[in-house]
């Protein structure tokens, strides 16, 4: 999706940094607006930069104050419960990623084991499998056998039900 891979570090070059800031700030405001419209939720953004003493805000100073007031009307516990700084947010992303990773590896394991199963059905030996593999293979076979039994029952029901 990204055309040029960006290195996530402070941009040393002044003019590059400034133009990046302008571009990304605009994009950020746009995304904030889209979220607000698509999901019909209260949103606000405040951006301070070294280029301007005045902050850039969305949607408007008045609206920002309203949303902030809404936030501050909540109990401190509720306010802080989903409040994040950069560290918190990145940690959240890492957690999500590790969950995705685990899922992906489970899927791969399942695919590999399925291959092994079919190889064995064709007659390939399995002396080379370790305990862990044998366990997984056993479970996979159970799973498949149950699925086949269900399917057989269904077909028999249809047949007997008189189509």
């Amino acid at each position, binding site marked *: 999706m990204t055309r040029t891979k960006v290195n996530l570090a402070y941009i040393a070059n002044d003019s590059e940094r400034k133009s990046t800031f302008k571009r990304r700030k605009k*994009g950020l405001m746009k995304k*904030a607006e889209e979220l607000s419209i*698509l999901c019909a939720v209260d949103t606000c953004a405040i951006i301070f930069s070294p280029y301007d003493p005045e902050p850039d805000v969305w949607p408007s100073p008045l609206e920002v104050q309203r949303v902030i007031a809404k936030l501050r009307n909540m109990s401190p516990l509720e306010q802080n419960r989903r*409040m994040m700084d*950069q560290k918190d947010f990145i940690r959240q992303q890492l957690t999500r990623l590790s969950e995705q990773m685990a899922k992906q590896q489970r899927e791969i394991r399942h695919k590999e084991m399925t291959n092994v199963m079919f190889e064995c059905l064709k007659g390939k030996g399995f002396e080379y499998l*370790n305990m862990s593999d044998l366990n997984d293979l*056993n479970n996979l076979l159970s799973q498949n056998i149950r699925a086949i039994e269900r399917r*057989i029952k269904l077909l028999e029901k249809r047949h007997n039900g008189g189509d």
Partner: protein
Amino acid sequence: MARKNKGRQRIEMTRMSKESNLLVTFSKRRSGLFKKASELCTLCGAEIAIVVFSPGKKAFSFGHPSVGAIVDRFLSRTPPPPRGGSRASNRRDQPLPLPPPPPNPNSAVQLLEAHRNAAVRELSNQLTEAMNQLEAEKKRGEGINKMRRESKERCWWDGPIDGLGLGQLEQLKVAMEDLKRNVGKQAERVRVVEEEGLKVPTASFYAGGTSSFVGSGSGAGGVGVDGGGDVKVSDGLGLSMTPHGYALGYGCGFF
């Protein structure tokens, strides 16, 4: 709209009709918004706060250096607007033209910020690393799919069982039960041999790391061999660790 979803599609800028989609969209876009904000902070040294209320009325906020700091800074410069009328009230009309706050000369605060920034950099690196690994795993998955598709030795039983007739199903079932029995016997053999401390086939046919992630089986530390002939060595813990598994520790301890 195209029949087959060609990746991203244009979406109409109006409240989403399906509630379930709305919730999913909120979750994703909120995360994406915070991500963009975080990047802007890192790349350009901006200081940002974002507040978003969820459809469930919960308040999500992101701030750098903190939500509170930015919000207070904002409020201290924009006094409440005058109520009604366009009558100029010199104190209340204009936002205070304060200069940006000078860099804090307090060295303790600077040190704290330096620490924070370093921690963020470290986490960012971990994140990039984790993303690359996930990418690699996904490619692996694709590779396996491709291999199966292109394999010429596919038999009638390979594939969804819905396409099989009653007779074939019965046949397949018997074959599987048979195999299962044999697998059980082999497992028993392996177990006995392990207990007696003899040399046991510990090589996993497949990249050993994945076995440990499923959390199944003990397996003495062994050498994982994948189809390509690469060898992945286990560590002394008895878990076969691939580089993938290793980096997933994030310094917070392994499985």
